[in-house]
């Protein structure tokens, strides 16, 4: 299941990346006006949210695989996995605040 999720999230992120790249190229660069206009758009905020959820899930699977391969003592691995999860949730909170919070 994780194997599939890792690939689905990767494709989703790649599509979003190309979308943002296309918007920037289409407008011949980026300035404050375009930047805020983009984030004022509910659809773009939703797409950005989906990108971040995909990114954080993808990062969890990747980091967990790295920790499983290189950190052998179970206690230490559990600790580092916990730290990783906490950091990921902090990133998620930051994302929500940035997309829908009050400034």
């Amino acid at each position, binding site marked *: 299941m994780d194997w599939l999720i890792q690939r689905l999230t990767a494709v989703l992120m*790649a599509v979003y990346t190309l979308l943002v790249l296309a918007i920037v190229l289409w407008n011949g660069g980026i300035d*404050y006006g375009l930047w805020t206009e983009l984030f004022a758009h509910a659809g773009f905020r939703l797409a950005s949210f989906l990108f971040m959820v995909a*990114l954080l899930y993808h*990062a969890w699977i990747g*980091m967990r695989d*790295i920790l499983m391969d290189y950190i052998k003592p179970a206690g230490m691995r559990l600790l580092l996995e916990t730290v990783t999860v906490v950091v990921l949730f902090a990133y998620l909170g*930051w994302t929500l605040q940035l997309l829908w919070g009050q*400034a």
Partner: protein
Amino acid sequence: MKQRPVYLDLPRIRLPLPGIISILHRLSGALLFFAGIPLLLYGVAGSLASPEAYAEMKAGFAHPFAKLVLIGMIWAYLHHFCAGIRYLLLDIHRGIELEPARRSSAVVLVLSLALTLILGVRLW
């Protein structure tokens, strides 16, 4: 527990090119986790507040050290992106023979470095 052969004569372990791409995929992924995501969130959050905040953020990222960090992140993203697409193609059995697999890993390495160079020069 079974005794497995341990081969740790490091200078004699010659990692083939696809192996180098694999380890760089991990390295770039970890870099993006530790630095890329917070920098992205910091940059986007800080630049949206007002035109002044946007200009301030732009000026902050114009510092040579910030530029170097940014170029490092650009490489990490590009490498992870290109290597990831290669893995997706391998998953659907494109280029799984030895020679195409070697060639595609060279393409990933060179392409992501070349794109980083182009973007890095533009950024600088």
